[in-house]
């Protein structure tokens, strides 16, 4: 086991060699001669990011629970090692066995954000696997993609043999069994893929062909063979309690982004915020049994020795047994010196009470995500958080001793006006004013309150009611950020408000890739060949290179981002059925334009279509709950 793929000379030269040596606590090592399938799971970003991803941990645990499979991991080598591996022609290797990825049966890549697309090519290239699925021979691993970006897999269609659409717990066993059958019968790669394409949730891009109209829009998207389904329905794990969950998550040696035990309390979200892709993709919301969660928490903490646990979900406050779960964790963790971190909580008396128990009030800050500055625009995006709720929550927090508030907004939302943008500044100002009204002078710590207002740029995503919307241009984004900054500087309490904004460049390209079609595969390949990797890292991203390459390929940024799509246009992702119907999304898009809100799943079913899966909230008794917002 002393054998490492990299020489001591290399390991002594590079940053954080721990990224590449494996051997972490709870990593799984099997006898390679005793398994029939070698699966390598990849997150195409640096180790510290990739290791923080829950999905891979779940699938790693699931695969390794099967006797005939050994699942290992690989991440993008950082720039320093990337250069060495290219120069010395060292094939990319899996962490556990330290053996080349190209010798594996499968390479599974999770695709979490658009700006990692060049890193996917980096991984394939370093692994010495042909970039193009069509060029892969019989001895190449089957390259399979999963994750949120596969809900529009088209820009990556050239590079993948299979996309697994939906949650991984359900169909992998079937896929691997068919793989073993094909291998035993001596069938070739093509025949395996043909059979795989008939498994629910599997999209095998080589069996589909797109034709285009003169204006560049899609004319048709059709299977090229009989028996290949023309629609691919997402896979969903309906019972989220009796299923795979890693009781022994891997404990990295180095500090990673999410360096704690992650307890996923539910999947999906009841709140149909119209900009949010996750809120639509993971419907219906499914809660985990609270007793099971308590057991899992204890066991995972024991098996990892982690000193912190966090709850994971899209909106933790909506979990019906949250108070009970938190009471249990407070009791359990308190005696063991374990910290609890609670993200995505709606700010109210309950959450403030809990937070004051788990964190140092003086040092921590509160977070609100109003997303839009005015009630009008919050109605457009169906963000059920009211100004009243924010101000009341802030007042409670200031009384409780907090002095720092973080606010998150988006710029460039559909129908946004200058007035909405001013609303961002005014809301920030009002919160500061609440502080001065609530906390008497003698009780003010340092006499100050700090409001940190951050804006990101809105990028329309597939399978949201805004999938037809026009995205702002880079110049418009920059102008909006400028207006925000100016409006904040005009506020009475401007000295208490700090304003942060994102770079606009990458948001434009994220938009192109998010709603792109197959023709962008050529762009991604050329940009990669010109040297782009780690586009999600500001210091690595070369915007001009992307823009000029798009033009070089005869395509236009404007076509993909800066036009409102007509409702009858064939969208590249229309062949995927994520449960939520196009009719529902259209209704929501129209309601948005009328500034009408929609009730959440607990209040009243909106008939989105996800009920067809026959589980989660769609079949549970609809409880009456108060609308107080929070996403």
């Amino acid at each position: 086991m002393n054998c490492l793929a990299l020489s001591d000379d290399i390991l002594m030269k590079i940053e954080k060699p721990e990224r590449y040596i494996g051997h972490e606590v709870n990593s799984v090592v099997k006898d390679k001669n005793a398994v029939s399938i070698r699966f390598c799971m990849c997150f195409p970003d640096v180790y510290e990011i990739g290791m923080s991803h829950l999905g891979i941990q779940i699938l790693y645990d699931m695969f390794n629970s099967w006797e005939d499979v050994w699942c290992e991991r690989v991440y993008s080598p950082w720039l320093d090692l990337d250069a060495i591996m290219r120069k010395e022609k060292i094939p990319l290797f899996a962490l556990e066995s330290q053996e080349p990825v190209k010798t594996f049966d499968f390479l599974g890549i999770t695709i979490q954000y658009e700006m990692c697309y060049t890193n996917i090519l980096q991984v394939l290239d370093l692994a010495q696997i042909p970039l193009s699925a069509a060029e892969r021979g019989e001895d190449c691993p089957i390259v399979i993609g999963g994750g949120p970006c596969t809900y529009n897999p088209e820009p990556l269609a050239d590079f993948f043999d299979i996309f697994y659409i939906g949650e991984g717990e359900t169909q992998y066993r079937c896929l691997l069994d068919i793989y073993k059958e094909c291998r035993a019968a001596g069938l070739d790669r093509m025949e395996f893929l043909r059979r795989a394409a008939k498994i629910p949730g599997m999209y095998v891009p080589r069996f589909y062909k797109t034709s285009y109209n003169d204006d560049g829009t899609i004319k048709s998207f059709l299977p090229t063979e009989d028996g290949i389904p023309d629609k691919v329905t997402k896979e969903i794990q309906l019972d989220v309690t009796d299923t795979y969950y890693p009781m022994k998550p891997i404990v990295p040696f180095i500090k990673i982004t999410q360096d704690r035990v992650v307890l996923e309390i539910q999947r999906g979200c009841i709140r149909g915020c119209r900009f949010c892709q996750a809120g639509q993709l993971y419907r219906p919301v499914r809660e985990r049994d609270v007793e099971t969660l308590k057991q899992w928490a204890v066991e995972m903490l024991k098996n990892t020795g982690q000193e912190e646990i966090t709850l994971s979900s899209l909106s933790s406050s909506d979990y019906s047994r949250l108070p009970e779960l938190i009471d249990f964790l407070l009791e359990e963790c308190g005696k063991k010196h374990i910290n609890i971190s609670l993200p995505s909580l709606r700010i109210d008396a309950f959450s403030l009470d809990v937070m004051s128990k788990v964190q140092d009030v003086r040092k921590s800050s509160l977070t609100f995500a109003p997303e839009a500055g005015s009630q009008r625009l919050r109605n457009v995006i169906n963000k059920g958080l009211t100004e009243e709720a924010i101000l009341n929550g802030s007042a409670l927090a200031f009384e409780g001793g907090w002095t720092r508030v973080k606010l998150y907004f988006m710029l460039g939302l559909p129908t946004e006006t200058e007035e909405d943008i001013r609303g961002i500044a005014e809301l920030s100002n009002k919160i500061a004013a609440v502080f001065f009204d609530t906390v008497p002078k003698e009780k003010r710590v340092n006499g100050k309150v700090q409001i940190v207002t951050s804006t990101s740029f809105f990028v329309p995503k597939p399978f949201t009611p805004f999938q037809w919307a026009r995205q702002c241009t880079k110049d418009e984004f920059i102008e909006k950020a400028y207006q925000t900054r100016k409006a904040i500087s005009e506020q009475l309490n401007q000295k208490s408000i700090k304003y942060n904004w994102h770079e606009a460049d990458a948001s434009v390209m994220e938009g192109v890739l998010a709603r792109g079609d197959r023709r962008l595969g050529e762009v991604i390949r050329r940009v990669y060949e010109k040297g782009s990797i780690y586009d999600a890292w500001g210091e690595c991203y070369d915007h001009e290179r992307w823009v000029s390459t798009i033009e070089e390929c005869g395509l236009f940024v404007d076509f993909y981002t800066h036009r409102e799509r007509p409702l009858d246009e064939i969208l590249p992702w229309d062949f995927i059925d994520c449960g939520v119907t196009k009719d529902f999304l259209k209704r929501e898009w129209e309601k948005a334009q009328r500034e009408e809100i929609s009730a959440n799943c607990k209040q009243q079913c909106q008939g989105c279509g996800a009920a067809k899966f026959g589980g989660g909230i769609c079949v549970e008794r609809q409880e009456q709950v108060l609308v107080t917002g929070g996403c």
Partner: protein
Amino acid sequence: MKLRVKFRKYGPVRFIGHLDVMRFFQKAIRRAELDIAYTGGFSPHQIMTFAAPLGVGLESNGEYMDIEVHSLSSCQDVVDRLNAASVYGIEILSARVLPDNAGNAMASVAAASYTVRFREGRAPKTDITQALPGFLAKENISFIKETKKGTREFNLRPGIFELKWDGTAFSMLVDASSAGNIKPGQVIEALLAEAGEKLQENALLITREDVYTDADESDEDEASDEDETGFRRTGQFVSLGEIGEIVA
């Protein structure tokens, strides 16, 4: 009560830096469910001290960590539990209960012993057997150290307590105190420099064998710190692992 845990570090984990080894043990101790003591305050942490940080890439047969526990079943039980919670390459060798007046592991470090070999193909041309006596006879072995603030020249010789070459490996005992710490590579570099040769990049395979503290002053029978060859005698030091007792 205070426990001193001795462990080995070898194989792939030699690339794990000192801070990450500390983090590793914080979690291993939780997995092993040792009854460790915590500091007070809003963010309590385990009471834990390491003797001497080991450089990245080095192996060791003698690393030490002192921890404070409220209770323990037996020293062997601590060793077994920690080993069960450990990974390949970090092996717990022993645990001893320290006397109440024992010094802090880090503050008491005085010397460390190392075995040093040349990597294949990176041995120097210099005849070491011939060069060694002359090198050790010198009173001043000047070495220029790169620091954050530039370079600093210092004399290596007083900190070299023992240096032997058996034809394939060096064994050395050098100063490891916070004020005068010497790295084994510095000694070899200086030895070769004396013969006009430059040490090749990443040429050495270094294993720390043990870490020592000054022998209790009351045990010193002689006033002299040096023997006739000019070395401080090994007898002046006692291994950190010999302090304390094994509780069954």
